Structures are given as structure tokens and as C-alpha cells.
């Protein structure tokens, strides 16, 4: 998806994306005694082309990280850096995707897929340029005129994924994108995302609470503590790509990492001793 659709006017993303970093970020909602601290002293650097997954307990402040990363929620000065510079205003490199697909019922598939480009300032016609041809890459060939309510859950998520991809933003913020799908559909979507990622190595930051998903997809897995979110441990996955979910399930390395993450998240002291042994 090269960008012939883009207007000539500056969109602010001309400078090449190199890196993104949380730099000793702390964050709290509210003021004074009512303040709820969601993130504490969080540092993480993501280089262009990396696939980083973040796992943590529910409600630990994962979504805060994304809202701060996109610049929609202003953070402490210098808490977020893009290409080494402090982020000011909305991040011009990021595009979101969520657990709820949030497709627009009154638009057909093509209209939904082009929505992000329209938000970036393209006209409807410019936005749709080339997208019809790309539908096949997302398993949506021939569905351009269908409405969201005619699609299955997996297809809807592929439309949402393609909508995010089509923005041509170099950093994808995926917030539990497959969390609402059934196990088999989720597995298919994970493999699908891996194939897409193999094509263009877009930078991906992927939030999940599914340990298998985190290991299957990521170059690194960042394990978070309960709120306020801090980095509990960073795990270099190092499993060979392309990855296959079934093969991984029986790989000793995979099982060891999985046990370690489960232990970190579950935090049961009785199990801890055995997990240490395995590790």
C-alpha cells in the first residue's frame, strides 16, 4: 500500500520513523488524594520494524500506555520520545486498532477500510484509491460492497486491521485486537497478522493478556505488574520466524518462557519455586 492516495500537503509524517520510547514515564488520573496512578517509571524503547507484545493483568494501565503513546492523553514532558525527540501533540506515526472492531454500519467494507485515510484528510475518492485491489491481501476479495453486519467476527477484525494498515502509519498500536474472538478464529488471525507483518515489517506494539499470543507474535514480550504498571520483566523471545503456533506448543524453549510469564503474572509463591526450577 504505497501512498498515491496522499494529498501533496504535509501530513507531518515525512520524516522517517526510527524509534519510539517511553522514557521513565509515570502517569496518574485525577488530582491530589483522588489521583489514580496507572503507570510508574515505565521505560521501553521500540525500534522501527520491531514487534513488541505487552502482557499484563486486566486493568493494569495498558491502555493508558497507548493513549499516551498516540499523544491523545498528554503525558509528563519528555515521557514519550519519537526519534529521540520529546513528543508534542498527537503522534504523527501511530495508528490504533481495538478489541471492538468499531466498524461503521452505514459504510460498506471499502468505505470502512478507507475511513482512516479520510480522517488523515484525503477525499473519499483519494482514500479508496488502490484499496479495492488490496482487499485480497486481507482475505476480503469480492466483499467490497458488503456491510459489516453481513460479515463474520474474524472478517470484521480483518476489515478493522486493514483500515489501520491503510493509514500507512509506520507504528501500529494494537490493543487486544483479537481478544473478543473465539480461540480458533483468534489463532487464524494471529497467523494472518504474522504473514502481513512478514511482508512489510511495520512497527507493532501489541497489547494482550493472552500469554500464548504474546509469545507467538512478539520479538520481545514485556510483562507488566498490576497497577500501577511497571515493567516486571522483559523477555527476548528469539524463536525462529516464520512461526507456527502448533509447532511452538511443543517447543521446550516456548514452554519454558510460557511458564515463566505465567508465573510472573500469576504470582503464586508456591508455584514460584517450581517455575524458578524450570527457568
Amino acid at each position, binding site marked *: 500500500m504505497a501512498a498515491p492516495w496522499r494529498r501533496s500537503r504535509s501530513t507531518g509524517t515525512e520524516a522517517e520513523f526510527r524509534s519510539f520510547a517511553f522514557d521513565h514515564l509515570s502517569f496518574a488520573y485525577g488530582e491530589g488524594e483522588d489521583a489514580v496512578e496507572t503507570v510508574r517509571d515505565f521505560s521501553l524503547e521500540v525500534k522501527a520494524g520491531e514487534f513488541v507484545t505487552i502482557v499484563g493483568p486486566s486493568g493494569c494501565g495498558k491502555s493508558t500506555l497507548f493513549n499516551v503513546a498516540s499523544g491523545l492523553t498528554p503525558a509528563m514532558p519528555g515521557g514519550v520520545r519519537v526519534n529521540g525527540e520529546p513528543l508534542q501533540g*498527537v503522534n504523527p506515526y*501511530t495508528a490504533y486498532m481495538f478489541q471492538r472492531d468499531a466498524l461503521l454500519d452505514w459504510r460498506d467494507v471499502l468505505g470502512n477500510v478507507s475511513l482512516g485515510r479520510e*480522517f488523515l484528510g484525503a477525499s473519499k475518492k483519494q482514500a479508496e484509491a488502490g484499496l479495492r485491489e488490496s482487499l485480497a491481501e486481507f482475505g476480503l476479495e469480492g466483499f467490497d460492497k458488503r456491510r459489516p453486519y453481513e460479515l463474520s467476527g474474524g472478517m470484521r477484525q480483518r476489515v478493522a486491521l486493514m483500515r489501520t494498515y491503510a*493509514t500507512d502509519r509506520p507504528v501500529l498500536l494494537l490493543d487486544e485486537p483479537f481478544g473478543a474472538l473465539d480461540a480458533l478464529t483468534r489463532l487464524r488471525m494471529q497467523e494472518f497478522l504474522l504473514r502481513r507483518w512478514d511482508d512489510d515489517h511495520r512497527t507493532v506494539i501489541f497489547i494482550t493478556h493472552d500469554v500464548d499470543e504474546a509469545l507467538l507474535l512478539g520479538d520481545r514480550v514485556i510483562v507488566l505488574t498490576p497497577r500501577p504498571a511497571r515493567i516486571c520483566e522483559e523477555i527476548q523471545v528469539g524463536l525462529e520466524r516464520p512461526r507456527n503456533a502448533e509447532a511452538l506448543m511443543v517447543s521446550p524453549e516456548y514452554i519454558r518462557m510460557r511458564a515463566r510469564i505465567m508465573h510472573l503474572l500469576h504470582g503464586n509463591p508456591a508455584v514460584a519455586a517450581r517455575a524458578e526450577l524450570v527457568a
Partner: protein
Amino acid sequence: MSAVSQKSDSQTVSGAAPAAPKTSRRAPRGKPFFLRVTFLAPLAVILLLLGVWQFISATGIMDELTLPAPTTVAESLWVDRAMYWDNAKVTLTEIVIGIVIGITLGVLLGIAIALQRVLRVALYPLVVGSQSLPVLALAPILVLWLGFGIAPKIVIVVQIIFFPVTVATIQGLSSVSSEVLVFGRSLGASSWTLFWKVRVPAMLPYFFGGLKIASSYAAVAAVIAEWTGSDRGLGALMLRANSDYNTEVVFGSVVIITVIGLSLFGLASLAERKLTPWAHASRER
């Protein structure tokens, strides 16, 4: 295609299943409207009620002065059609102007309340409070201010119908998922863009829900408004006919008001079907 397959069926073994029709996403059109259950069933109910009514009048259980027979009412509607039409024109004018102002006011208030916190705090109590105003009791004052013409009637129609539109508009504008808004804002979309591309289309199905309620109130509101002081319009005609014991004219007016009310509701439903086809399709699923 079906003709061909039927022909070949009749030539071969009897009882052979005809070729499956090509699956179509639309429901088959089939019979003309006036032969369908959706038309015949309500028609049967109405005819039955009219029959009972006619029977009661014919047997003299209730005398013609209290309950004129349907045929008498129909005769009055035809013979005095010029009189009915003159009065219906006035009432229709009040209704149409009232609906146009009421919808505009309702939508604008809804937008203001849904999108602006300050305006929400400032206006919501007033809007809700306006619904507990005994506006009919205040009608004499309205007449005092605005005269005996159609103006005070329009005010009453507006007062009664804007509220469901406002509530529906607020609900519709707030029905947008926060994810779409976050997705849009992170890409630099302006509030204006999000309003037109996301909020307004999401609002439409709710708006039409409110409009249907408003349109079914409008006719009654106009008639009652005329009772509070008027010499023209269907409401005024009813009052005069009532005091003159012209019961068939009272019933004739009721018939016309009902027809107006049904037509308005039908128009609103038709507009809803044409302008928000997705809302129906997703509900049917």
C-alpha cells in the same frame, strides 16, 4: 428461469423438486401489496370494527345522535368535503410548520446538549422542565400574546413534539463507540470531520425513532391547541359540531385527523427506510 425449470419438472417425474432459486439478499417481491398479509390483516380488523359499529347503530342500541353509523359519517365526509377541506388546510398548516420548527429546534438542542458540556448543564434542566409545563392551561396567555391565528397553535405543537426529537438526538450522538473517535483523533481528524462522518450517520436511526413519536403526536397536538381558542381548523370544527349536536361532523373530523396522523407516521417510516437502510438490515439479523 423459473418458467423453464417448472416446465421441465412437469415433463419429468411428478414430485421432483424444482431447481432452487438463486439466493437473493432481498426478500422476494412476490404478491402485490394489496394481497399481502401486512395489508389484509389490518384491513380485516378495521372492517370488522366498522361492521360492529354499523350493527349497533342499525339496531338502535345507541341512537344516531350519540353514535352516527359509519355510513352516515362517510356521507357527511363526502357531502361537506369543501368544509372539511377548508378546516383541514388550517390544521395541516399548523402541523407542518410545527413539525419543521419542532424538528429543527429538537435537533439543535440535542446537538448542543450532547456535545457541549456547558450547554448540557445549562440547557438540560430547562428542556426537561418544559415538558412538565401545563401548556394547555397556559394557552389563553399564548392567545393573549400571539392572537387568535395559527401562531399560538404552532407554539403548542412545537412544545409537544421537540422533546422526543431532542432526546433521540442526544442518544444517537452519544451512541458512537469511543474507539472510532480515538482512532479518528489519533489520525488528526477534526471534531467537524468526526461529527459529519461518524456522529451524524450514527445518530440517524435514533433520530427517526424520535421523529416517528413526534409525528404521531403532532396531529393531536394541533387539534387540542385549536380547542383552546380558534374559529378555524379541524379542532374548532369539532367543538362547533359538538355543541350543535352534529355528531357525524365530530366523527368525520376524527377520521380526517386519524388519516393525517397515520400519513405523517407513514412518511416518517418511509424516510427512515430510505435514509437508514443499514439500521433495518442489522436489526433483522
